[in-house]
């Protein structure tokens, strides 16, 4: 790793990136208009703005995905032309996109080195082969270490260890080296390491031979001695073979990446396929991808939108570590508290134009949000006290399978949601919330259990019935479930009720009524798009897509509303609106089941909090009588205390 020397005096700090008068038009719309951006070396610079304010566009221009219509870009004081992301890579600019660009079935390691593989003869080994090779590598290590004495222990470690890399690290830790030496080792290029290893191997083999000759006659039988000779010749062969094949290069990459990960405190398991990784780990993979390519200017495009609170904390820590190592970070976000926590300076964009750049030290979150939205925004939700009515939804013993139908990810959940209350399911992402919602909304069939809605028993998997009875669902994944992206906005706004007699007659669609309906919702909910009702859902920004879904679901006048992360990836102004609307629904007497990973939202909206941990409901709280710390204990499984009492009515 090359270290860049950074001068820390802010006033004199040289500029890493300077973007001068950047203008970019999409059709008649200005995405960026005369944007001037100055980013100092070694700072964390946040770009703040609502959805569609042009943050992502300006960064896409910097990363070479779009070309600017006008304007200049200077990197480290030199004027450059960035035509495509490869140019950006050459200039040591890296970017973590909002939607990760990873290959699902490949392990983390392959995703990191992708495009930089050092394969021999273009052969890449598959996972199974690698596992087999691990066994041979084992013998190599067994030669390296005092295998003869510690063989049982060694086998133990290998059996327990998850990955070849961790085997190596564990073994070095255990037998060979202190922690500082391990560090040094991890930083050593593998070419040198193999030499060391070979020498060690020779030494060990000699030692072993001696011991076998000297003591072995007493202890060891001849077959045993022959066996060990065989093992060592095998080990030597395997070592040679490894050096001759690209496996060594993979291992080299793995060593380098492990070293980088260790340096910046990125927790990662190189051998897990991406599809089995948590979102946080996928993001760390993306970060490592940049670091492995020696990038100095790192762009994070809304990195926290998909993370749990814990993951966000660790990401922010990683960003601080990166800064300490002299990296320049550009951080696109609309979450104010994150900016206040890590950023040195903030540039605020509104409707494609720069509103201003401020030091975070001299400002407050409220000031920033006002600058961003252009008006005063209420960050807290106003909510009146209201007694809840009768139970709308009764969930009894609901048990759900995971994706592969291997294990239960929801374990007999029991709870009620009453009319006119907001029940929030809190918990760390991946503790069964998703499957619970799938079971309730009918997207997946439960293993067992029953759901009663009003006076009806819901048939498993029957969404039509739920539609008919008045259940609305704001889904977590708006692209997968919420919208048909290739349909127009007006078509999407009737996705649930296209068979309603307002919109269809004798099976024919009444396009005019659909258009009218769309225009009504567009003006009511302030859904912005390029061509109004006619624009395709795909062309809309994420926040406006979410607004459209919420407009559709609330317009149905539901009796029960399921909202999963309704404000995910939505800007502050819109969050305020969405929260208001959800509270309004509750005041109207609707039972609301909310799933949220953001504790701010959990505390400001809910009337009752249920905490889920590993598929079980472990606690029930009144938001006024509990604290974040207490919730945290339950969310991490340290405490559990939930008794369900059937209401007699």
């Amino acid at each position, binding site marked *: 790793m090359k270290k860049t020397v950074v001068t820390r005096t802010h006033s004199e700090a040289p500029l890493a990136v300077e973007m001068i008068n950047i203008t970019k*038009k*999409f*059709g008649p*719309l200005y*995405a960026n208009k005369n944007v001037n951006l100055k980013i100092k070396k070694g700072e964390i610079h946040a770009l703040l703005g609502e959805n*569609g304010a042009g943050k*992502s566009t300006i960064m896409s221009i910097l990363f070479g995905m779009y070309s600017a*219509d006008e304007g200049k870009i200077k990197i480290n004081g030199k004027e450059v032309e960035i035509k495509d992301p490869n140019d950006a890579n050459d200039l040591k600019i890296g970017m973590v996109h909002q939607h990760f660009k990873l290959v699902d079935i490949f392990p983390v390691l392959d995703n990191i080195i992708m495009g930089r593989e050092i394969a021999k003869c273009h052969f890449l080994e598959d996972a199974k082969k690698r596992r087999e090779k691990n066994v041979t590598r084992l013998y190599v290590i067994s030669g390296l270490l005092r295998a003869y004495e510690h063989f049982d222990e060694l086998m133990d470690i290998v059996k327990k260890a998850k990955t070849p890399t961790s085997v190596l690290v564990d073994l070095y830790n255990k037998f060979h080296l202190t922690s500082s030496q391990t560090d040094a080792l991890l930083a050593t290029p593998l070419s040198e390491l193999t030499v060391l290893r070979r020498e060690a191997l020779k030494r060990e083999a000699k030692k072993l031979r001696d011991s076998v000759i000297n003591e072995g006659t007493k202890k060891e039988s001849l077959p045993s001695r022959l066996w060990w000779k065989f093992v060592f010749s095998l080990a030597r062969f395997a070592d040679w073979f490894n050096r001759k094949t690209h496996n060594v290069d993979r291992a080299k990459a793995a060593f380098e990446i492990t070293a980088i990960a260790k340096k910046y405190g990125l927790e990662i398991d190189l051998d897990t396929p991406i599809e089995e990784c948590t979102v946080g780990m996928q993001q760390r993979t993306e970060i490592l991808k940049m670091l492995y390519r020696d990038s100095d200017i790192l762009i994070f495009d809304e990195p926290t939108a998909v993370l749990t609170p814990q993951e966000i904390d660790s990401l922010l820590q990683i960003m601080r570590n990166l800064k300490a190592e002299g990296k320049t970070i550009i951080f696109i976000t609309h979450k104010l508290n994150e900016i206040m926590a890590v950023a040195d300076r903030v540039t605020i964009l509104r409707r494609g134009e720069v509103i201003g750049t401020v030091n975070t030290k001299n400002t407050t979150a409220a000031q920033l949000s006002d600058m961003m939205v252009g008006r005063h925004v209420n960050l807290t939700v106003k909510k009146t006290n209201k007694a809840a009515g009768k139970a709308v939804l009764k969930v009894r013993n609901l048990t759900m399978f995971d994706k592969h139908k291997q294990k239960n990810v929801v374990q007999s959940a029991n709870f009620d949601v009453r009319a006119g209350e907001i029940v929030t399911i809190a918990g760390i992402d991946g503790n069964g919330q998703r499957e619970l919602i799938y079971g309730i*909304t009918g*997207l997946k069939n439960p293993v067992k259990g029953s759901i009663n809605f009003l006076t009806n028993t819901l048939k498993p998997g029957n*969404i*039509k019935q*739920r*539609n008919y009875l008045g259940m609305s*669902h704001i*889904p977590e994944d708006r692209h*997968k*479930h*919420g*919208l*048909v*992206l*290739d*349909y127009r906005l007006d*078509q999407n706004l009737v*996705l*649930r009720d*296209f*068979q309603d007699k307002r919109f*269809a007659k004798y*099976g*024919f*669609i009444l396009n005019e009524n659909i258009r009218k309906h769309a225009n009504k919702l567009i003006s009511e909910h302030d859904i912005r798009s*390029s061509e109004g009702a006619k*624009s395709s859902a795909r*062309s*809309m*920004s994420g926040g406006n897509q979410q607004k459209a879904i919420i407009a559709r679901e609330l317009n149905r006048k539901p009796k029960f509303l399921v909202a999963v992360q309704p404000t995910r990836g939505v800007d502050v102004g819109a969050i305020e609106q969405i929260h208001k609307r959800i509270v309004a629904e509750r005041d109207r007497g609707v039972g609301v089941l909310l799933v949220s990973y953001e504790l701010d939202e959990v505390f400001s909206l809910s009337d009752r909090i249920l905490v889920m941990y590993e598929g079980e409901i472990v606690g029930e709280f009144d938001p006024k009588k509990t604290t974040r710390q207490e919730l945290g204990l339950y969310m991490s499984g340290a405490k559990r205390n939930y008794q369900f009492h059937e209401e007699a009515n």
Partner: protein
Amino acid sequence: MNKIKAFFTRENFKHIFSSNGANHLYSSLICVAFGLLLGFIIMLCLSPNIAGTDFLMLITGGLVYYGSEGFGNILATLAPLLCCGVAIIFAYKTGIFNIGAAGQYTLGAFGALLFAILFKCHWTVCLLMAIIFGALWGVIPALLKTFCHVNEVISGIMLNWIGLFFVNYSMQTYAKGMVDAGDSFQTFQFWIDGRGPLNPNYPYNPAGKLPNLGATSLGDCFSIAIFIAIIVAIIAFIVMEKTTFGYQLKASGYNRSATKYAGINAKKNAILTMAISGGIAGLGAGLYYLSGVERWSAVSSSILPQVPWNGIIIAFIAQMNPIGAIFASGFLSLLSIGATATSQSVFPKEIADLITSIIVYASGLTAITLRIVPWIKNKIQLKKAGGVKELPLNKEGK
């Protein structure tokens, strides 16, 4: 009246010609022109002297060379092609690639001929049976797909062959009355030009032939098939674009998860789609064999009929638009008839197949041709405006 007047205004035409659909049309035309050009170049290489005249013959021969009878032939071959094209488009719009159209077509032919020759039914009954046979054969891969998660392409291809051998075997063992043993195992011609059967033992069922509305000048083969096919295409278009059923089907083609979320029964729709698609393919076979263009050959048919495969080609040239398919199939049958009118000693009649396949490859590049059109338009605009730079790009293209 005012509405009609409003339709014919200059602005409205401007709007129509710059719409998305029109762009698709232009890009299709570019593909066709590209195919013809390449075909012409190949003909030039084969024989530069007569390439020009023969190329003209290839394009216009169907209309000119054989006179009005040729035109009747074109229409008769057009009808089944169009049906198969529409069948594939219909399934494709809902996200299913109905490569099993050939099998459904075969079964449709069997159904039509069985009821025309053996049971001596009226042509309406025969067509209905063609539709039912085709639909049943189409439902099988749909059932396999929805309940056993078998890919419809694999099961479709297998069912093509199963259907073909099933039909031929049935004709030779159970329905021997259909096969004319004296004529190399072809089926009987159930209808022989009003003069009655040549042999009293021959099946004779003039009611089974599609009526030709008295247009005898268009040849023996002409029948109302072409009108039925066009009506089917138009109905398919209306169903896709204007009905809630089409809304559901297209939505499940675009995003299956979202349709599930919306409470649409995707399984039922997939089965229904394949039944309809198979029915249309079967109808195509009925229209072909009941108009008497050809007889089914139960032994030499160890290859699948060509028409449904050409249906796939039509679907792609028409860029999945049923109305476009009318013109695409017209173009294809024009070429195939025209190819027989070229100098056969110099140019093989496969030159038509060659050109159509080039067009198909070109239409595979729709993504590029779709961009060419706005690019050209932009150039024209630039010339008019005197050079203001404005790139045609997607809005917020993420």
